[in-house]
């Protein structure tokens, strides 16, 4: 059991690793007391910078008064310190082989910062009680899981929540899965993972040629990055305004995303060719009695239906498969005169109507 702030700081990164399911952390093990107004910062060199007044002192107080009853305001102060700790640790999480150099390069690309900060903040809030439980903090500060604190990054969090929830729905995945998966990635892999999930949840893998997949994914990624970059505009504004603008922007970007996917799916959906029926006039008078299709010589098989095998018109194709050849028609005297014109090609719907009108399909 952890009994001091020092013990907590020793264990906190491993608890983040455990609850996230990430493969590795880039934290160097060093904590630096932050200056210059910084509350918390996961530095690219692997050091963790934490503010004394808002993070380190509340965490000391948490253990100095271990087990004592606290006010809600005190419990919220602890939660805010812990959620910042978890948020910063989530920046260090990554898959096997991830490097801070690659993450640092990717963080500079449009839309990377908004996604990474939004994911880290939202995930840290959603999993804070798991983190508290993992570190055994409920025993030190009874009631800490009963109070709530509000997320920061109001410009990013609502859009990220909408975005990741939509990806869960499209993938048929449990709520929170996309957020959890993205949180395990560094900036290098986050957009790649998000776009892969979007692409794989669409019909595009079945429609688009494999060599077109990278270009489609790139187009989706660029559009999404641009939308997320736009969220930065709301950062200087009050939380309420930033939250509502982020939510509206998230809704818009999802509308655009779905339109983009629909357009791409249509682009690669095969256009069904019209069904054609070639009607040849009967060469001979009909023999008495019904005969099977197989016994009719090819030259006297006037009705040939051609339809793409897997087209939406296949049902019509099957419906027309039972059309009796004209050779089985009643004697010619009871039929309209055979057309003197060459074989006609008519659209399927007309063909079906013609077949009915001539009585060839109703016997």
């Amino acid at each position: 059991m952890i009994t001091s702030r020092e013990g907590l700081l020793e264990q906190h990164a491993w608890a983040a690793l455990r609850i996230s399911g990430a493969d590795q952390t880039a934290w160097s093990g060093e904590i630096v007391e932050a200056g210059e107004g910084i509350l918390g910062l996961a530095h690219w060199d692997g050091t963790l910078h934490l503010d004394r007044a808002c993070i380190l002192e509340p965490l000391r107080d948490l253990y100095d008064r271990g087990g004592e009853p606290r006010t809600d305001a005190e419990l919220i102060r602890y939660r805010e310190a812990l959620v910042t700790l978890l948020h910063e640790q989530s920046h260090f999480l990554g898959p096997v082989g991830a490097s801070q150099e690659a993450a640092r390069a990717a963080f500079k690309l449009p839309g990377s910062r908004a996604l990474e900060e939004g994911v880290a903040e939202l995930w840290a809030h959603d999993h804070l009680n798991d983190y508290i439980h993992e570190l055994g903090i409920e025993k030190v500060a009874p009631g800490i899981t009963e109070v709530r604190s509000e997320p920061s990054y109001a410009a990013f969090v609502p859009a990220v929540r909408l975005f990741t929830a939509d990806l869960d729905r499209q993938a048929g995945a449990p709520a929170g899965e996309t957020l959890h998966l993205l949180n395990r990635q560094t900036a290098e892999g986050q957009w790649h993972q998000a776009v892969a999930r979007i692409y794989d949840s669409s019909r595009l893998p079945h429609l688009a040629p494999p060599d077109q997949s990278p270009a489609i994914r790139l187009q989706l990624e660029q559009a999404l990055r641009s939308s997320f970059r736009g969220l930065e505009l709301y950062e200087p504004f009050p939380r309420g305004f930033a939250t509502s603008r982020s939510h509206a922007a998230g809704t818009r970007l999802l509308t655009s995303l779905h339109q983009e996917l629909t357009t791409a799916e249509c682009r690669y959906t095969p256009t069904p060719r019209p069904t054609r029926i070639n009607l040849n006039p009967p060469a001979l008078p009909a023999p008495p009695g019904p005969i099977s299709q197989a016994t009719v010589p090819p030259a006297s098989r006037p009705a040939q239906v051609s339809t793409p095998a897997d087209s939406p018109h296949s049902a019509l194709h099957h419906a027309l498969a039972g059309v009796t050849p004209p050779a089985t028609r009643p004697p010619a005297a009871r039929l309209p005169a055979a057309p003197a014109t060459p074989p006609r090609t008519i659209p399927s719907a007309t063909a079906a109507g013609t077949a009915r009108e001539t009585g060839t399909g109703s016997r």
Partner: protein
Amino acid sequence: MESTEDRYARTQLLIADLRRRAEACEDPREQANLSRSADSLVRLAVALQP
């Protein structure tokens, strides 16, 4: 296309602006929201350094 130097300079201006706004806030939640956005921009500024 904005150069890295220009982007770094713009990021520093944004950090300073967010810090000023945070200092002027009475609501601690507003202050935290602005300060943490500034922290994120510090992370970006460090990434932009050669």
